[in-house]
């Protein structure tokens, strides 16, 4: 991200000179939010951007297909325009004949949607290339080096440190799914940090994306949860007055089913969004201080570049940690949905003996 802005310094500087103000909020939200076109670079006066298809379904006027290029000149097309305020700011809305605005079903292939596809393709290529090495070798061959070795190291670490202890007995069933979630988030996070097309879209900082990922976990947990799990929710092992006649604890447990994916959604979204916002803010410091003259501008630029490098490295760490945490929590939720058939006492004793009880609790609090 920051690099993109460093490249675009002259363009922005000109703009600054014209407008005399730096629209920090506009720059930051412009990046964080989805858009109908993918701005690649501005060279001088010329903007190079990818115009993406707009697909809309309106209850009033039916289906609409057009390129976002159409919106560039007039700002509106076929009765649709991008609204600036309200709950749908930045989205296309339809102006009805009576003057009211209606939000259509927006299936446009937006910047985020395209980035998701690019990331998905890249992920498939990476993993299938790795898998190809294994298809061509046998277990008795020496371990792979280079990129395949790195992938194997990361996979083995996630499986052994996260999935195996968290899911429990039949962890092998869930390993591919959890690994896919991990690598999808990790790759999307890293791609979000690379400022140049085709990377640079704020994929995991989009709440729709993190919600979808959390829903995958949600369905895995609740579809494959065993009887013990549902019994613990609907008829937990507590004194009778807590569950009948007022189902106090079952109610809390049922709310808990939905708070888990919600927590997953918000955690990933908030972490990545905050990271991007901080890096962009630091970038904007350069343009704000540049207007105050070279005496303030020069040292502040150096300082801000230093902080940006620091933040980028930190974000690289965050990219890994958030993918790790999301996978770990998903694994823990799956593990909790498959309690083994034994009495509560025994389970507790076992857990204490294994030293796992505290870990699980900590994970739940996160």
């Amino acid at each position, binding site marked *: 991200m920051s690099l993109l802005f460093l490249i675009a310094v002259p363009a922005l500087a000109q703009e600054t000179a014209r407008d005399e103000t730096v629209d920090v909020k506009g720059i930051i*939200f412009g990046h*964080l*939010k*989805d858009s109908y076109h993918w701005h690649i670079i501005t060279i001088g006066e010329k903007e190079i951007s990818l115009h993406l298809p707009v*697909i809309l379904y309106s209850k009033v006027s039916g289906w609409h297909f057009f390129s976002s290029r159409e919106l560039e000149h007039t700002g509106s097309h076929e009765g649709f325009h991008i609204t600036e305020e*309200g*709950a*749908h*700011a*930045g*989205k296309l809305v339809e102006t009805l004949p009576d003057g009211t605005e209606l939000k259509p*079903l*927006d*299936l*446009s*292939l*937006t910047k*985020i*949607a395209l980035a*998701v*596809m690019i990331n*998905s393709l890249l*992920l*498939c290529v990476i*993993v*299938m290339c*790795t*898998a190809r090495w*294994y*298809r061509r*070798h046998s*277990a*008795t061959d020496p*371990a792979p080096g280079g990129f395949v070795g790195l*992938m*194997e190291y990361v*996979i*083995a670490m996630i*499986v052994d440190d996260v999935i195996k202890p968290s899911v429990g007995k039949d962890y*092998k069933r869930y*390993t*591919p*799914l959890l*690994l*896919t979630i991990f*690598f*999808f988030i990790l790759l999307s996070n890293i791609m979000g940090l690379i400022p140049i097309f085709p990377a640079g879209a704020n994929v995991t900082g*989009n*709440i*729709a*994306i993190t*919600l*979808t*990922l959390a829903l*995958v976990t949600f369905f895995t947990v609740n579809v494959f949860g065993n009887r013990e799990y549902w019994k613990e929710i609907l008829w937990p092992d507590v004194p009778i007055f807590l569950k009948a006649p007022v189902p106090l604890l079952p109610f809390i447990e049922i709310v808990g089913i939905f708070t888990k994916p919600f927590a997953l959604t918000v955690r990933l979204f908030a972490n990545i*969004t905050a990271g991007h916002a901080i890096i962009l803010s630091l970038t904007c410091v350069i343009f704000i201080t540049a207007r105050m003259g070279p005496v303030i501008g020069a040292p502040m630029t150096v300082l801000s570049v230093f902080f940006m490098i620091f933040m980028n490295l930190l974000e690289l760490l965050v990219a890994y940690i958030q993918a790790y945490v999301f996978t770990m929590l998903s694994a823990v939720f799956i593990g909790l949905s498959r309690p083994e058939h034994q009495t509560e006492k025994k389970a507790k004793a076992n857990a204490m003996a294994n030293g796992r009880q505290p870990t699980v609790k900590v994970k739940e609090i996160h």
Partner: protein
Amino acid sequence: MDLLIPEVGTIIWMLIAAGIVFFILVKWGFPMITRMVDERNEYIDKSLLAAKEANERLAGIQNECDELLKETRAEQSRILKEAADRRDEIIAEAEARAKENGDKLISDAREQIRLEKEEALRSLRRQVAEISVQVAERVVRKELSADDEQLSMIDRMIDDVKTGK
């Protein structure tokens, strides 16, 4: 606030893309890798176990070797000692036999010499006797032409023989 509202379109696109990716990777991607990693881990465990066993066996063999070497050394020194004894024995025996042989040879030779000497003496005496007889014959033939002389002669000769003896 609009940042916090999930867009339905994005969710649908994400579901499509992620669904395809998940399907591909869950079916053909990760199981391949994790299975292989598990297999390799198993293989390594097995190899380690085999190596340990081999090491133990090797240590056993080493011990056996040492034992064998020790035994062999003992055997060697025993054989050497035996050989030396045997050698001494043979030499002594040979010496004894040689001495015996030598003695026998010497005694034989002495006997031979004695016999030959006797033989020589005997033949010498015979020859002397013959020569004496021939000489006597000739003398007798010549002398016996006169009877006196003959008789004196005979007497003389008998005397000679008596004294000569």
